[in-house]
């Protein structure tokens, strides 16, 4: 569980606040996305969760641990942060070595380490590449490897920074099915993203950040169809929501679908009901 208790952050006393008085609670096993313009404070928030940064005011609790009293190494066991660009972390000779490096600091028995590596290779479809150099993999395979280097450590919370940036539709679909598969293991999945279409399809809950403050938090369809929040955060509501709004102008009885899967049906109902 992640709890933010009235958290503010700034880099030093003479710089502006990056985050201001944010409180938040995320339960174990949630699949959640955080959106906001560049510079809204998303990366800072994420770095507060795994202890790369500590709050200036307030407290951050990860599974009951106060991050202000814990080291990055301790927190990294609970919170796995996957960076945007796999090239920022891949360095080893083989994919297997890459995973080995991630577990060797965990004081696990050799058997546990090996099992974790073997399972990760299977779960992330990396078995075929285990003895290949990570630098010779394709973009999508590299990304899976970089998720693997965090996954193998078995954190309860998995944070991904901009996982869909620069990915084509096929890669995105693969990523989506991978993430929902990982979520079934009871992990919390936390995305930092600009990708509204990906979020609406896959994340039940969303947080909107603007100039260091959480201005929206709730079920994705509800937040995305809140005109005030969306325009304040300079985000475009997804196409389907804008289409429903447009239709509602003359047909106020038409209701907003609860999830994107019901969208087609809403349109069919709109056409059929006189």
């Amino acid at each position, binding site marked *: 569980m992640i709890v933010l208790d009235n958290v503010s952050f700034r880099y030093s006393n003479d710089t502006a606040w990056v985050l201001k008085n944010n409180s938040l609670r995320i339960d174990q096993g949630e699949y959640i996305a955080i959106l906001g313009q560049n510079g809204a404070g998303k990366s800072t928030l994420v770095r507060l969760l795994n202890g790369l940064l500590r709050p200036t005011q307030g407290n951050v609790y990860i599974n009951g641990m106060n991050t202000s009293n814990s080291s*990055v190494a301790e927190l990294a066991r609970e919170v796995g942060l996957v*960076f945007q660009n796999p*090239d*920022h972390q891949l360095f080893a000779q083989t994919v297997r070595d890459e995973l080995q490096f991630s577990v*060797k*600091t965990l004081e696990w028995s050799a058997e546990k380490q090996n099992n974790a590596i073997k399972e990760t290779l299977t779960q992330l479809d990396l078995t075929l590449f285990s003895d290949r150099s990570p630098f010779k993999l394709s973009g999508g395979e590299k990304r899976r490897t970089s998720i693997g280097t*965090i996954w193998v450590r078995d954190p309860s919370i998995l944070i991904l920074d901009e996982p869909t940036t620069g990915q084509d539709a096929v890669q995105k679909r693969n990523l989506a099915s991978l993430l929902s598969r990982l979520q079934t293991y009871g992990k919390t999945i936390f995305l930092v993203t600009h990708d509204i279409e990906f979020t609406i399809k896959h994340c039940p809950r969303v947080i909107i950040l603007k100039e260091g403050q959480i201005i929206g938090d709730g079920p994705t369809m509800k937040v995305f169809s809140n005109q005030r929040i969306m325009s304040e955060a300079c985000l475009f509501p997804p196409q389907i929501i804008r289409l429903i709004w447009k239709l509602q102008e003359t047909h106020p009885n038409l209701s907003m679908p609860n999830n994107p899967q019901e969208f087609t049906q809403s349109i069919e109902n709109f056409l059929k009901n006189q």
Partner: protein
Amino acid sequence: MTSLKLLEGFRFLEGQSFMHRVDPRVKMFLALVFMILSLLFDTVYPMITLFCLTFPFIIIAQRVKRWFLTIKSSIFLFLLILTLNTIFLSFSAAVAMCLRLLVLISSFSIFFLTVHPDDLAAALVALKLPYSFSFSISLSFRYVPTLALEVQTIMEAQKSRGLELEKGNLFTRVKNFLPIIVPLVLLSMRRALLVAESLESRGFGTSEKRNFYKQISMSAKDWILFSLLLILLVGGIFIKIMPALIPDGFAWFFQNWPL
């Protein structure tokens, strides 16, 4: 952070002061003159004189604060020099040595604080060095912060995988840097290719004569400053090689303290 503050006094900051407008070649000459003079003499009073001559330039450039940050964060270095030289030479020599460092830092600080890296390139070209050479210098200036940011991201990414940089004996620590260095080198190589591609796309590296957007030219003020510096340099050298020129009663000025 200290290491970054140390560099504050050498980092260019856009400004409108007189010193900013002085021709970069003259500022290069200024740094050179003070370097030569400070190495020529090794006693306290000439050093104080040299410092008194350099400091006003920093004031004119309105960069005293930056300069002070550098001095402040190199205080350890000063103390080290002071102690070592007092033990092995004399207190007088130690003070002179510290002042020499102060003069060196100040004069080069004037140069780097007020010379735009791109002007540095133009100045080197004006001094007949090949453009590719001066361009690579200004390009390295440009990419220092980018590289620093990249190192930071890589360190954060590896820390998130449990890497602890501060732990272990010397050997482990050196080994711990491998996960930082390998991605950095690979990323930098890729970046080099992409930058080259972008340069190429904008016509870089053609043999034609190149004109500069900002032209550097010596104004009357530049020539005056240059002449003053030249007089100072020649005067200093004369006094050094012909001590007989020193007027009677001024010999103490060039001698060490009896300490």
